[in-house]
C-alpha cells in the first residue's frame, strides 16, 4: 500500500515538474497532434481486429 502511494506521489511530482511545456504549440498544432494520435490509434485497433480474425481462421 505504501509503495503504491509512493508511486502515485512520484507521478504527481513528475506531472508538476513538467507542468509548463517549454515549446509553445499553437491551438492548431495541438489539435492536429490530437487528431493524428486518435487516427493512428483507430488504425491500430483495426489492425488488432484484423489480427484476431486471421488467428480465428488459423
Amino acid at each position, binding site marked *: 500500500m505504501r509503495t503504491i502511494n509512493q508511486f502515485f506521489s*512520484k507521478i504527481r511530482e*513528475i*506531472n508538476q*515538474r*513538467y*507542468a*509548463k*511545456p*517549454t*515549446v509553445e*504549440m499553437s491551438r492548431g*498544432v495541438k489539435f492536429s*497532434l490530437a487528431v*493524428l*494520435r486518435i487516427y*493512428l490509434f483507430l*488504425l*491500430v485497433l*483495426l*489492425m*488488432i*481486429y*484484423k*489480427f484476431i480474425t*486471421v*488467428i480465428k481462421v*488459423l
Partner: protein
Amino acid sequence: MLIPVAYYVQEMTVRLGAVTKRGHAEAIFESFGAFWGWFSLLDLMIVDWLTLVTEFVGMTAALSIFGVPAWLTVILVVLLMSIIVLNGRYWTWEKIALGFCLLNLIYIPAAFMVNPSLSEITSQGLIPNLPGGLNNELFFLLMANIGTTIAPWMLFFQQSSVVDKGLQEKDIKMGKIDTFIGAIITVAIAIFIVIVTGTLLNGAPIDDAATAAKLLMKTNHYVGAFMAVGLFDAGLLGAICISLASSWAFGEIFGWAHSLNTKVKEAPWFYISFFFTLATAGVVPLIPGAPLVLITLFVQVVAVTLLPAALVFLILLLNDKKTMGEYANTRLQNIVSTLIVVSIIILSTMYGVSALFPNLFQ
C-alpha cells in the same frame, strides 16, 4: 529507399541528444508537457515490449535449428545479456554490441553460396513490381519491412545512447557519418537476406522462422546454419537495444540513475526494469501454439503505424531554435522528414482501407 528513411530519422535523434544532453523521453516531457510525455512513454513501453517478444521469437526459432529448446534459449539469452550489460561501462557495452553487429555480415557469404540469379535480382529486386497488385498483403509486408528498419523505440534508444556515450556538439559530424554507415549496412544486410530466402524459399509455405531455416538447412546445410546464426544475432542485438531504450526512458522521467556506466547497486531500478522487460517478453515464445510469425509481422506493422506520432514530436523538437540553435533542422531536413511522416500515414491508411474493403484496389 529505406536508407534515407533510416538515416534522416536517426540523424535527427543524434543531433537532438548531443545538443540537449537529454534522452528523448525527457525531451518530450520538458518540451510538450506531462500529457504528451506520458502518451509517448506508454506508447514506447507497449511497442518496446511487443517488439522484444518478436526478438525472442527470432532467437528461439534460430537456435531450435540446432536442437536447442526454446526455454533454454530464453535462459541463455538473459544470462548473456546480463554479462554484456552488467560490466558497468557504456563503451564496453558498445564494443560488444558492435562485435555482434559484425556477425550480421554472415548473411553476405550466405547470399553468394546460393548462387542467385543476377537477372532475377535485377528484375525482381531493383525494378519495382507488384505481382499481386495493390492489396492488403502488399501494404502489410511494406509496413512490416519499414518496421524492421525504423521504429519508435529507435528514436528513444539512439538519443539516450548518445547521451550515455557523452557525445557533444563537436561530435555531431562523426555521429552523422556513423549513422549513415549504419543505415547503409542495415539495408544492405536486409537485401542479402532477401536474396537468400527469395532464391531458396520462393513459394515455399513458411509458418515460422524455424521452418524457413530448416528448409534452408535441407537445401544447403551451411546456408541454413549461417541464416540461423544471423537470425539469432539480429534478435539478440534487437533485444539488447529495445530493453535498454525502455529502461533509459523510465530512468530519465522517474529520476532513477540510468546509465550503463553505473553498477547495479548504484542504479537498481534501471537494471530491474531492464531484466523485468526481458524476462516477461521471453515467456511469450514459450506459449504452445502461439502464431509467432503472425505476431512478429503484426508487431512490426503496429510499430510503423505509431511511428508518425513519434516523428512529429521529433521534428517539432528539432525546429525549436531556442534549444537547438545552429543545429536546428534545415529546410531540406524538414521536407524529407515530413515526407517520411506523410508516406507512412498514407501507407497505414491504405492498409487500413484494404483491410476493411479487400476488393477496393483490385
